[in-house]
């Protein structure tokens, strides 16, 4: 791993002659780039650059190679695995000036964007043509398409639509030595060569710098409806989810949250959610109106046996409010403590009820307050510890609880992270999930792209 040696003044001079004022070196500015949305990780870069074009990115990479400088690519910095914390210092390459939305094609149902376009902006541009951008992370108003691709963002639509990787058609990327490659393209079918597009999706800035993304869009469904079911416990909700998925076509949305989360969200959003419920399940579907009605009725039916109460959202606005409330679950939880440590374990759906019970028991045993929410339909849980950041014992207890939770998830056939990524935060657990042979292969792949180990050192492939 390149070490945090002081940056040679000549490197700064080269960057400044390339990008002028789009090079930041003041300690205050650098400190602001020293963290992302992940707690507990902090390290400032030596310089921040804001290239605007592929050519500028390539030139930055040539300078990095010449001086052997680490480069950490950063979009909006909303990731939750410390993927954009520059642990070895060096250059932070910010994509916030790469915001050109090059094309939205209704005919080909795709968009071509620079990586710094926000997911929210692409969503609105797609909607104007009757299309949707599928990745739907909680951070979608702030996060960038480049970041969504680099972390293979998931979100609230995974069950029916899948996640980011299913929608990336083509990429333009700059390799560490400044060479520009184009993978995939506008084609639905293309098996020429290894699938480098899929390899780059979720590579967290460790293999190349993404500079243009061709993203498949899908038609905006004619109708979408949502409802809420309340249960006495998360396990009851998980069983309802299992029965819903087993009994018919996968619906668009099956999200749940426990009573801690319901109360936190209600404090912020004030939607009239039932604070006394043990668990809330947000279910929804989209498509042709009569099919959506049937799907909602079926889901309500399945829930009816176990639920304590069921509400169907009467209007589109009410449904939007419910979804918005669900997306802000993590920061809303932060109202009750100075630090939130959020995890992302995922298990096969039949093991969901067992996993949520294990999370609750483990939290209790370690004396940690953990609120759990997540994408129930995907088996994807976000147990979130709310702790006092000044109390090291609390933090240690939370980490110990999560250690057990990760191991249990893998034992149940699950994974340590469903959608947030590995970054620096999950790297210590990665070998438990992949085994030593795959870890070694990851390192060989990494060095094929990045023999000098310049891109995002200390993360995947390190």
């Amino acid at each position, binding site marked *: 791993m390149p070490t945090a040696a002081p940056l040679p003044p000549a490197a700064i001079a080269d960057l400044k002659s390339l990008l002028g004022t789009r090079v930041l070196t003041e300690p205050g*500015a650098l400190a*602001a780039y020293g963290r*992302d949305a992940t*707690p507990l*990780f902090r*390290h400032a870069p030596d310089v921040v650059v804001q290239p605007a074009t592929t050519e500028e990115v390539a030139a930055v990479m040539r300078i990095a190679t010449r001086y052997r400088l680490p480069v950490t690519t950063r979009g*909006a910095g909303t990731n939750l695995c410390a993927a954009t914390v520059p642990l070895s210092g060096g250059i932070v390459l910010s994509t*916030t000036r790469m915001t050109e939305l090059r094309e939205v094609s209704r005919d080909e149902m795709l968009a071509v964007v620079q990586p710094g376009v926000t997911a929210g902006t692409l969503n609105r541009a797609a909607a104007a043509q009757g299309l949707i951008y599928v990745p739907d992370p909680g951070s979608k108003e702030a996060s960038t398409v480049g970041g969504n691709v680099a972390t293979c963002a998931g979100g609230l639509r995974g069950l029916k639509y899948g996640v980011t990787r299913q929608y990336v058609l083509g990429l333009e990327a700059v390799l560490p030595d400044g060479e520009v490659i184009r993978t995939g393209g506008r084609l639905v079918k293309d098996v020429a060569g290894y699938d480098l597009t899929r390899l780059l999706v979720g590579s967290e800035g460790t293999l190349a710098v993404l500079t243009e993304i061709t993203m498949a869009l899908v038609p905006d469904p004619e109708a979408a409806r949502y409802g809420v079911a309340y249960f006495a416990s998360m396990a009851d909700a998980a069983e309802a989810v299992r029965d819903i998925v087993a009994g018919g076509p996968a619906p668009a949305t099956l999200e749940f949250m426990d009573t801690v989360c319901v109360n936190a969200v209600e404090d912020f959003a004030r939607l009239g959610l039932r604070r006394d419920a043990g668990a809330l399940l947000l279910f929804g579907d989209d498509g042709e109106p009569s099919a959506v009605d049937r799907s909602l009725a079926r889901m309500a039916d399945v829930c009816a046996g176990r639920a304590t109460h069921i509400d169907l959202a009467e209007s589109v606005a009410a449904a939007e409010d419910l979804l918005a409330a669900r997306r802000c679950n993590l920061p809303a939880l932060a109202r009750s403590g100075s630090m939130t440590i959020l995890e992302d374990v995922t298990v096969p759906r039949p093991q969901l009820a067992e996993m949520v019970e294990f999370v609750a028991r483990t939290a209790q045993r370690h004396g940690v307050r953990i609120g759990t929410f997540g994408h129930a339909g995907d088996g994807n849980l976000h147990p979130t510890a709310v702790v006092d950041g000044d109390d090291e014992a609390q933090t240690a207890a939370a980490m110990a609880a999560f250690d057990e939770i990760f191991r249990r998830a893998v034992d149940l056939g699950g994974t340590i992270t469903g959608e947030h990524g590995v970054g620096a935060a999950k790297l210590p657990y990665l070998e438990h999930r992949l085994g030593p042979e795959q870890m070694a292969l990851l390192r060989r792949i990494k060095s094929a792209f990045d023999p000098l180990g310049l891109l995002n050192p200390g993360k995947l492939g390190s």
Partner: protein
Amino acid sequence: MSEKADTRPATRGVLSKDLLDACISCGFCLPACPTYAMTGQEQSSPRGRITLMRLLETGELAPDDPTLAEESSFCLGCRACETVCPAGVQYGHLLEEWRDEQWRGMKRPWIVRPLLTVANRTWVLRILGSVRRSARKRKTDGQRTLMLGCFERALFPSVSRSLAALDPTISVDPNQGCCGALHAHNGELEKGRELARELGDRLAGTIITTSGGCAAHLADVIGRERVVEASEWLLENSETEKRPLRVGLQDSCHLRNGLGVWKEPRELLGRTAAYVELPSSGSCCGAAGTYALVRKKESKAILAKKIAEIEAADLDLVIAVNPGCLRQLQTGLRKSKSRTKAVHIVDYMRGR
């Protein structure tokens, strides 16, 4: 794992710990921030500025650090970030505490100093009001008292006269001082609170204000229940005859983001004219209190976009609910020789 984010070797007591602790750096605030939109740089986002405040608090950045100075002044203080923050971070209060340190004494921008001097002297404000003929003294049952904004008395005296005409039973006390919003936002937080308390003690009953910025500050110090902003009052208490006018609105940031009052002026305008929602009616016009004086270049850049929008909408009137915004819009419209006039909502309701 590198270093703990929240380890504080020592604290300087500049910023309240509980206010800082509320932020988890999720970044949901980024798309709401006008200055982040300008630079795309982390340190000019609400999240980045809170990181800077933390480093000021721990002493990791010196108080004279250039980024601290630049960012505390570059921030508009519009509080748009608060409305999208699920964690409930009170950014406006943090900024006040920050500027209280950053702009103390001789560190304050020189152009702000004479304004504070004037606002500190009630007799100067009284004379300004009487020379410019703002609303005259009137003693009624004291259920409602009109707040006379200090710069409004000098710049837009017709506004208080119009409100006094629309509300014949409101009390007017020309001997009132400044509410202290100016102080709170420009590095004299305690003085700002003291002035608000004094004003609250002096004015009887419910205080009706014609300035969104003052309303938010006053409500924050003396309690929301005692403060009613003019458009709230007008909505309940005025005739709403439809006029053949195309009318737009510029929200007051603190009224909208601080007090959550934004439906009321829209409803009022919708009842009385053909209301047109401007694309950025809810975001800052660049006046931002003293910002138009301290950060002329950025203020003009924000205003230019706003004026282009107003021109594209082909409005007869654009309505303001705060004297600072009114002055900003009038300046911009005059310079671009627009046919649109900027008018205060109270003058508009009186038909002026």
